[in-house]
């Protein structure tokens, strides 16, 4: 090794030294990158992904909900002629036969108010909401659909007053096979609805009859079909796909 303080005699020698140093630096950088990558995947899992990735998903969600964007933007609406065929994708929680006559929506209001069992007729007493928007699946496809139902916001005022103070809403299928947790701000969004009509017709079973959630500010995974129970809470409720490595917020 030459003494770095002594002047190098030729440009060739200096280049050789700088090349050694340069590639050593590149090698150290590459080793650090590989080490960082291995560290990432060695971290404890949290909801199906390594903890640091979960933290970043949550931080991205806070950024979206916070000052940067706000969370009351409306999903664009479309003219009815742009309605598209929508595929029936998820069937978790839809396996048991459904008897529309005996179906009830079990509502557990916030902080100990009396629980209620609602029929579809109870919900239809609220003002009808009807719009055409783009439904977006987390897989990457999307379809323009006309939905009909009642605003979740109106539902809370009528059947669970005060529950808007809760931080989260939990929604489950009657058999509890599928369940989602959604932040209250997104649930109170003016386009979030308890839906019983698709393209002007009663919902089909495969699309969530008798009652589903339509929440255009979230990916399809949060748009739970065949709702059996609604609960309000301050802690994030269990969420089917968030346990499988997906973003809990899943917001658009």
């Amino acid at each position: 090794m030459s003494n770095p303080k002594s002047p190098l005699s030729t440009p060739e020698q200096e280049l050789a030294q700088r090349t050694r140093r340069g590639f050593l630096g590149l090698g150290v950088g590459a080793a650090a990158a590989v080490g960082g990558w291995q560290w990432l995947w060695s971290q404890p899992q949290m909801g199906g992904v390594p903890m640091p990735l979960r933290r970043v998903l949550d931080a991205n969600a806070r950024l979206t909900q916070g000052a940067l964007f706000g969370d009351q933007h409306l999903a664009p609406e479309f003219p009815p002629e742009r309605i598209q065929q929508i595929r029936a994708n998820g069937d978790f929680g839809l396996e048991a036969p459904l008897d529309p006559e005996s179906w009830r929506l079990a509502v557990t209001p916030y902080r100990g108010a009396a629980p209620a069992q609602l029929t579809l007729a109870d919900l239809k007493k609220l003002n009808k909401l009807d719009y055409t928007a783009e439904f977006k699946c987390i897989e990457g496809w999307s379809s323009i659909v006309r939905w009909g139902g009642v605003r979740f916001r109106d539902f809370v005022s009528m059947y669970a007053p005060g529950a808007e103070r809760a931080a989260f809403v939990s929604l489950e299928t009657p058999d509890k096979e599928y369940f989602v947790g959604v932040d209250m701000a997104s649930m109170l969004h003016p386009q979030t609805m308890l839906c019983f009509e698709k393209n002007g017709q009663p919902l089909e079973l495969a699309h969530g009859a008798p009652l589903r959630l339509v929440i255009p500010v979230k990916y399809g995974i949060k748009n739970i079909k065949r709702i059996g129970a609604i609960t309000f809470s301050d802690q994030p409720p269990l969420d089917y796909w968030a346990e499988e490595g997906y973003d809990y917020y899943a917001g658009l």
Partner: protein
Amino acid sequence: MVTKRLEQKHSFGKRWTHWVNFPVLFVMIWSGMLIYWANDVYEVNAGPVAFHFFPDAIYRTFNLDHRLSEGMAVHFLFMWLFAFNGLMYVLYTVISGEWRDLVPQKNSFRDALEVMLYDLGLRKQLPPQGKYNAAQRVTYSAIIVMGLGSLVTGLAIYRPIQVAWLTEGLGGYTWARLEHFALTLGYLGFFVIHIAQVVRAGWGNFQSMVTGVELVDNKLEAKEPVHE
């Protein structure tokens, strides 16, 4: 005998952002493929030639299937690194004045064609050039615009309600997704040509991207055209 001297070729800021971008972009493309797999609807149909993105063999060989959640989690971390590093490069290039060597000039688009013909052996003379030839000016500027395009189209499909104005401006959600994908194909095309040119330009050129310096003849008039 011709004496030689070391000449500064690539600045520290440029080399640093270049080598950081390499693995970061790789991870973005890889995680992007994990996401794309879940709805892999794009194909090119040019008469008799049809290519589906991507054949099952590619997913299987590189273990890209059934990993959507992982792909999203990685993509939405590395997007920050990609954006930050790109921003650092642009800021550095602007502040240092190096943008003057890089942005296309009036004749660059026409000259770039001549450079291409020269590189393909179809033309004997290169048009006059500075540190970077016309084809490099066009390509290295286009790739930065593409990077910005990936960020913009990416945001449009990441938060299509929050930035509905942007998503609509790009032609809607499904178009924005296709544009995001097409830009990635552009990077792959860039990568292939870039590597071929680096191999062609030889060791001295490659090592200068690592060390920053290259050995040049003291007689400057014999300077060889730079390709990388």
